């Protein structure tokens, strides 16, 4: 009888602890999650307008396995496409919002949303200076990078300077944008 009551007590206590904490968490979750979602949606929205400078509004285009954001300007004209690019850099996932012309020929701008690259080295991909290099460069045939450019030689179309000491991160950014543009182009055909 003693064993019986011990077992019952154990089950009862664990159940109660579980129920109370579960109920409490449901309440907290309800309170906070909408806020968190709103924040992340907001940052996505902001990024779209950064990479498509002429756009004032956008529409979501759902393709087979990717989502495109169709930028629209004041007069309702299509001013370019934006999409998320994901890939792995030197340390982990990099996520970039990329804005391109309607015919995918030219990059309008990019914004790095997420990166865990080495601070001070690959982490510089989030610097404005690095991201600005992508403004208005030719996206086809592909984006290339150079190391230690001689300052005298001019940039070729579609070329960016790799970050000193962080070639791998720079290469990762260029490669994943190239790959995604090809994928989008194929999906649109």
């Amino acid at each position, binding site marked *: 009888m003693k064993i019986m009551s*011990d077992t019952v007590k154990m089950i009862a206590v*664990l159940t109660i602890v579980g129920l109370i*904490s579960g109920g*409490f*968490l449901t309440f*907290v*979750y309800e309170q906070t999650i909408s806020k*968190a979602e709103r924040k992340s949606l907001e940052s996505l929205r902001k990024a779209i307008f950064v990479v498509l400078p002429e756009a004032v509004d956008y529409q979501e285009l759902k393709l087979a396995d990717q989502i495109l954001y169709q930028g629209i300007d004041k007069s309702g004209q299509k001013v370019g496409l934006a999409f998320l690019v994901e890939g792995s850099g030197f340390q982990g996932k990099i996520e970039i919002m990329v804005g391109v012309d309607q015919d995918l020929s030219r990059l309008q701008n990019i914004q790095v949303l997420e990166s865990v690259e080495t*601070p001070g080295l690959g982490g510089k991909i989030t610097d404005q200076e690095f991201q600005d290099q992508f403004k208005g460069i030719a996206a086809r045939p592909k984006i290339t990078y150079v190391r230690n450019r001689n300052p005298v030689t001019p940039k070729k179309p579609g070329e960016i300077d790799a970050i000193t000491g962080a070639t791998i991160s720079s290469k990762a950014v260029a490669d994943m944008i190239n790959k995604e543009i090809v994928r989008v182009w194929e999906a649109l055909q």
Partner: protein
Amino acid sequence: MRQYILFKDALKGLWKENPVFRQLLGMCPTLAVTNAAIFGLSMGLATFFVLLCSSIIISIFRRVFPHQVRIASFVVIIATFVTVVDLFLKGNFPEISKALGPYVPLIVVNCLILGRQEVFASKNPLHRAVADALGMGIGFTLALIALASIRELLGSGTIFGVQILTLVGEGGRFRPWIIMLLPAGAFLTLGTMIGISNFFTGRAAKKSACH
């Protein structure tokens, strides 16, 4: 006398039984997120909050938990508060939440918290459990801030984002030590700090043994 005990309970966490430098507990967040002082502070406070809340609950209900399932109950209670902190950070400080990444949910398995419940809160009355949690929590937070400040200062020339050393590119003479921002820098700094603290406490112990 009662006050004296409370005082002692709270004070031991600051130095004599400091979770980081003396007990080497909770090394995972200590090493992982301390490359900027603000992250050290956030992680310290998050852990502090979880420790305090679960100590309170567990101390109040310490006679209720059957011996065989006490650890399971403690873990559920700790996990609840960790999830609260995690959601709170996600909702209000998305940047910090992103930077701390998986290390906030991982507070659940921080040995410091479960250890204090098992050793102290589940065996002592509420006021002493609170004093203990306060001491340990503050001790942990201060240790993380100290470690993170050293790493941030050497790694980026700033503390809490305030420029202390001017960088080479901005007219100064300081070149940031990148290694300090990497995991290796955490091991180096923590090891050096523990080494120095042992060097001095070892000396003090020897001295008192002589007399």
